[in-house]
């Protein structure tokens, strides 16, 4: 049917080729992304990728699912080697480690101050991603914490949801003893080799391992002292099922072995994955320390997306993060409803999903509650040595449980930490 001369064909082909070439630098690359947690970050990134490809069909995504420790190790190795080939275009970094990477690998991450409108994000997130006036990456989720509990177990022990509202840790321990006496279940599970619980309790008291100037704040830190004391009390009271590692910890509450767990909102997806337990769960505020300045709100984890400066698809990656994570309100509604991701884009907080009640949690308006608590989380300075301090704390926690006075333990922690942070 077509009998066009060869010359016309060549010209057409050249024209098509040229137009493809022209579009190529902006929107035809493959964006490689490293992140962890298939039920959370990975699934959310897939959703984000699908949304972006609708408007930019040329872009493809390669989302690589690693364990968190492996992401950090590969990132650190790649950054140290100085080559860009071994690294992805976008990487997820937990907030505790953000300043560590920004300060120790200058020039490794793409500055985005002029490309992203940061005024819409929660200020504490933007602050921890900023170094010397330049902001890197796009803020993602918050780790606002809550007390997730089994309604059925608590009811069996004679407690109503109202009994768990704004309680102290001492009250939590009392309830725990009653729960075990009535149901035979432990109140909670904890991996004592992990610093998570210490960080939750400490931040709810408005403190961190470091003061605002980044100096070590251990021996005079009332919130840290309270955090250690509380954990020792819980173990001594026998309300804790000891966990060995993350999987064992998760198994503790998903299998119904324990009655409650205090952790970040991002665990919601994992809890809701147990469809048989629908309607049996409830959410209450994080217990607080019995001291001045302590709140019933805290944070655990939370992370953000960073673009590598040596990435070949740098502009496309920044464009993608800005388009989806920077302003797509509908996207934030969807990941909240599906995955329990509380984003740090403030504009997304007024969306309809925040008002919805969740049948899995007995019809509570869980998202509105988390959003309210988020506003109350005391801002602290995470500094750059959180892992070192976590290690010093977990190394000395056993001695406290064995009966060493808490002030002596704090002194030991400070001694160990001093040699580690240099």
């Amino acid at each position, binding site marked *: 049917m077509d009998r066009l001369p060869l010359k016309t064909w060549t010209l057409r082909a050249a024209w098509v080729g040229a137009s493809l070439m022209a579009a190529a630098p902006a929107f035809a690359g493959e964006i490689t992304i490293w992140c962890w947690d298939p039920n959370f970050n990975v699934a959310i990134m897939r959703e984000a990728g699908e949304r972006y490809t609708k408007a930019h069909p040329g872009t493809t995504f390669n989302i690589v699912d690693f364990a968190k420790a492996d992401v950090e190790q590969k990132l650190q190795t790649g950054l140290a080697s100085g080559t860009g080939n071994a690294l992805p275009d976008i990487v997820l970094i937990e907030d505790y480690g953000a300043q560590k990477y920004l300060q120790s690998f200058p020039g490794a991450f793409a500055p985005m101050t002029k490309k992203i409108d940061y005024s819409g994000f929660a200020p504490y997130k933007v602050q921890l991603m900023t170094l010397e006036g330049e902001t890197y990456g796009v803020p993602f989720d918050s780790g606002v914490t809550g007390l997730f509990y089994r309604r059925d177990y608590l009811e069996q022990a004679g407690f109503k949801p109202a009994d768990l509202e704004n309680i102290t840790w001492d009250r939590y321990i009392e309830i725990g003893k009653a729960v075990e006496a009535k149901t035979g279940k432990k109140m909670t599970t904890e991996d004592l*080799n992990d610093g998570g619980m210490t960080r939750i309790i400490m931040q709810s008291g408005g403190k961190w391992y470091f003061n605002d100037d980044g100096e070590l704040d251990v021996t005079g830190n009332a919130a840290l002292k309270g955090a250690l004391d509380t954990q020792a009390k819980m173990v001594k009271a026998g309300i804790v099922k000891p966990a*060995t590692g993350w999987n064992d910890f998760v198994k503790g509450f998903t299998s119904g072995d324990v009655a409650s767990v205090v952790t970040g909102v991002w665990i919601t997806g994992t809890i809701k994955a147990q469809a048989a337990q629908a309607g049996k769960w409830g959410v209450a505020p994080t217990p607080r320390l019995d001291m001045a300045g302590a709140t019933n709100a805290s944070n655990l984890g939370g992370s953000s997306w960073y673009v590598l400066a040596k990435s070949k698809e740098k502009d496309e990656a920044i464009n993608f993060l800005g388009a989806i994570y920077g302003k797509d309100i509908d996207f934030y509604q969807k990941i909240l409803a599906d995955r329990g991701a509380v984003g740090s884009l403030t504009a997304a907080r007024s969306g309809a999903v925040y008002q919805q009640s969740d049948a899995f949690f007995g019809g509570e308006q869980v998202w509105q509650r988390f959003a309210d608590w988020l506003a109350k989380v005391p801002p602290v300075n995470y500094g750059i040595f959180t892992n070192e301090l976590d290690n010093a704390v*977990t190394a000395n926690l056993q001695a406290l449980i064995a009966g060493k006075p808490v002030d002596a333990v704090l002194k030991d922690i400070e001694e*160990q930490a001093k040699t580690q942070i240099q």
Partner: protein
Amino acid sequence: MAIFTARNRHGGLKRYYDVNGWLFIGPALVLIAIFLLYPIVQSLTLSVYSGRGMMMKFTGFGNLVRIYNDPIFWKALTNTITFFIIQVPIMIVLALIIANALNNPKLRFSGLFRTAIFLPCVSSLVAYSILFKSMFSVDGIVNRTLIGLGVMDQPINWLTDPFWAKVLVITAITWRWTGYNMIFYLAALQNIDRSIDEAARIDGVPSWGRFFYLTVPMLKPVILFTTITSTIGTLQLFDEVYSLTEGKGGPSNATLTLSLYIYNLTFRFMPNFGYAATISYVIVVLVALLSFLQFYAVRERR
């Protein structure tokens, strides 16, 4: 004149062999230089620098001073030496006894036993560590079995008690590596002439005497070899403790080894490549020292 030519011809021949010889080993030498020599020299250079990530500054002996003052380093060193002192002898003796038993020609199904005992060492390091972790968890199969048998009433907190965590690591590496060492002994035993053993038996030497005074001395070179490789292996212990404790060396740093500490300094903590390199040289010195001591202990005395 004649002598001169001969000498000349001899020199040419020598050069001919020299050039060809170097050409043959050249590729290997280049590879060794790139992948062995360069990293060794580079890490030595690194060890006089210190700093955060890429922000390194020259510090001279600063890292050695830091090592001296670092309680975690000493803790890791003590743990590593504890593992080595307790685990290596247990494993070597166990491997010797098993090899000797399997070498008995009257033993039936010896091939089956040999395979069964060797099998752990072909299993993946990480896979078996994860398996051990679940077997030894508080409500794992080991605790349940021991309670079921009436050995104890309370479950042992294998992974959360500092003492039992060490016991668990030693158990795990012994399980993994005994069969490996046994194979060396078996191979060596098969080279020992049976008539020696027979002659001793006819002379009325009891079996324990034949084992201690005949078999063991004849296995001495192999025992030396396995002891040194096991020592090096234990000093570099990493995979097992990493997998068992999620990279933390807990509880209370009770299972932190030097290699794991190096890993933490590089990948988990604020990256300090210089300090980590210095500690890796401590392992090198330790291995050299211990190997020398072992050679010295079993030297031929005349």
